[in-house]
């Protein structure tokens, strides 16, 4: 019985995930390229503004600095913004069928996660293009670093918990407050500027906002992503902060969903 349930969850995840992918690419000519093009376009815009016009100083070439933070951030923000509709967009199903609804959120977050993972080669290409050698003694062949084998899955797991928890929260609350959607887009945008994606955290630290790395889990996580990609290292304290927040956010989001789920069919 237990394995039957597990294999059902697997089937459910696969079918929802393949729906996401097929519907996203089926009628688009560029297909997979779109998923790379989107973050790259954002990167190009930010590059133009913050490297050429504003001239933010970074230790590494700005495009490299930018995409190592922007790509993981895009996964987070895409999932959270889309989560408004994970339940609301499936209202007829929710009204009639008893199935584990959290999988609607799960498959959405998972799909954005996969898009992020398949964009990692682009980061490698940028590193090669800039002949980026992170530290003395490193050769170009050291990157992608062997450390990525554990760092990337670890950071993916931490970010997944944060994203899934928040997406469950937003998807659930949006059923009860239908204008949350506008608020989410605004808040994620605000959150973006409070996270050192387009600027180095040192810049915030100079102005006395260094504590932000410990108060904003996405800030500590983005710094971790960047150091993992560019140096093959992780700062233990920041990782601990991000992981701690991740567990709390995930549990809170899941708990909220669990306690309100029985009312979904009444209010959709």
């Amino acid at each position, binding site marked *: 019985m237990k394995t039957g349930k597990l*294999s059902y969850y697997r089937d459910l995840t696969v*079918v929802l995930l393949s729906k996401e992918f097929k519907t996203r690419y089926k009628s688009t000519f560029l297909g997979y390229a779109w998923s790379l093009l989107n973050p790259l376009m954002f990167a190009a815009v930010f590059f133009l503004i913050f490297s050429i016009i504003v001239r933010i100083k970074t230790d590494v070439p700005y495009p490299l600095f930018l995409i190592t933070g922007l790509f993981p951030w895009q996964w987070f923000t895409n999932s959270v913004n889309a989560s408004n509709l994970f339940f609301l967009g499936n209202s*007829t*199903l929710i009204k009639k*069928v*008893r*199935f584990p609804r959290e999988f609607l959120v799960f498959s959405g977050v998972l799909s954005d996660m996969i898009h992020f993972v398949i964009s990692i080669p682009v980061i490698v290409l940028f590193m090669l293009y800039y002949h980026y050698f992170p530290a003395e003694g490193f050769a170009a062949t050291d990157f992608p670093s062997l450390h990525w084998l554990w760092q990337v899955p670890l950071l993916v797991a931490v970010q997944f918990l944060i994203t899934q928890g928040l997406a469950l929260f937003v998807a659930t609350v949006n059923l009860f407050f239908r204008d949350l959607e506008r608020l989410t887009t605004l808040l994620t945008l605000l959150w973006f500027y409070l996270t050192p994606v387009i600027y180095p955290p040192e810049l915030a630290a100079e102005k006395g906002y260094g504590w932000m790395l410990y108060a904003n889990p996405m800030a500590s996580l983005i710094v971790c992503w960047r150091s993992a990609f560019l140096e093959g290292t992780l700062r233990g304290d920041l990782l601990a902060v991000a992981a701690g927040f991740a567990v709390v956010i995930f549990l809170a989001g899941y708990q909220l969903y669990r306690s309100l789920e029985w009312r979904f069919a009444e209010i959709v």
Partner: protein
Amino acid sequence: MSEDAIIRLKNVTKHYRLGSIATVGVKGFLLHLPQYIKAHRRQEPFRALTDVSLDVRRGDCLGIIGRNGSGKSTTLGLIAGVLRPSSGEVETHGRICPLLELGAGFHFELTGIENIFLNGILLGMGREEIEERLDDIVAFSGLGDFIHRPVRVYSSGMVGRLGFSVAVHIQPDILLIDEVLAVGDQEFQRKCFAKMAEFLAQGITMIFVSHNLTAVGKICNRVALLEAGRLVELGEPEHVIQVYQQHLANPDGREPGT
């Protein structure tokens, strides 16, 4: 109460809180917070169902009739397990399959085949199970080559046929049918009724909510009449339908005690 009941509603009452915050949004809620809290306390909840007790035996085909807003869909929702009773108990045994509204659970960019898997799995089937029955599902839907084309090019009748075809091949223990057979041409409706007769012969339990009294009279062996959330009649189709028709003809003439 019989022992072989596959569905059992015991003194089920369901009320909804009306004027919920769902429609006003965060802004409205925060701006008018005191009023909402007051209204919330004062408000009498809307009773969709009041003290309904009902047994459905394995192999029954129960028709549920009644005016709009009499609680038919709420009953169905409680049986499907998507609604939770405010008081009382709902007990069901076996796999329940609701027949969905036109196109619900379908994605219009996906092909018929892809939608069969999507819909089938959402309704509780495993992938392997669907693969085994795929040929039957496709054949029953009568969609031919359209099955490989995206659902957005289907007519509404074709969408309905595909949905019905998936649902009936799930081999549920309980099939919930909520006025969905109105779509589809005569030929398909005939096929559906034939399939329902076949289910009845197989001993699959069916709950049939409909305004089509002829269909209810023809298929069901028991009929429940709901009025304003109360179960007012339960029994032989001819009798209950007759009572309902009298109610319809004489809307103010409530029976004493209801």
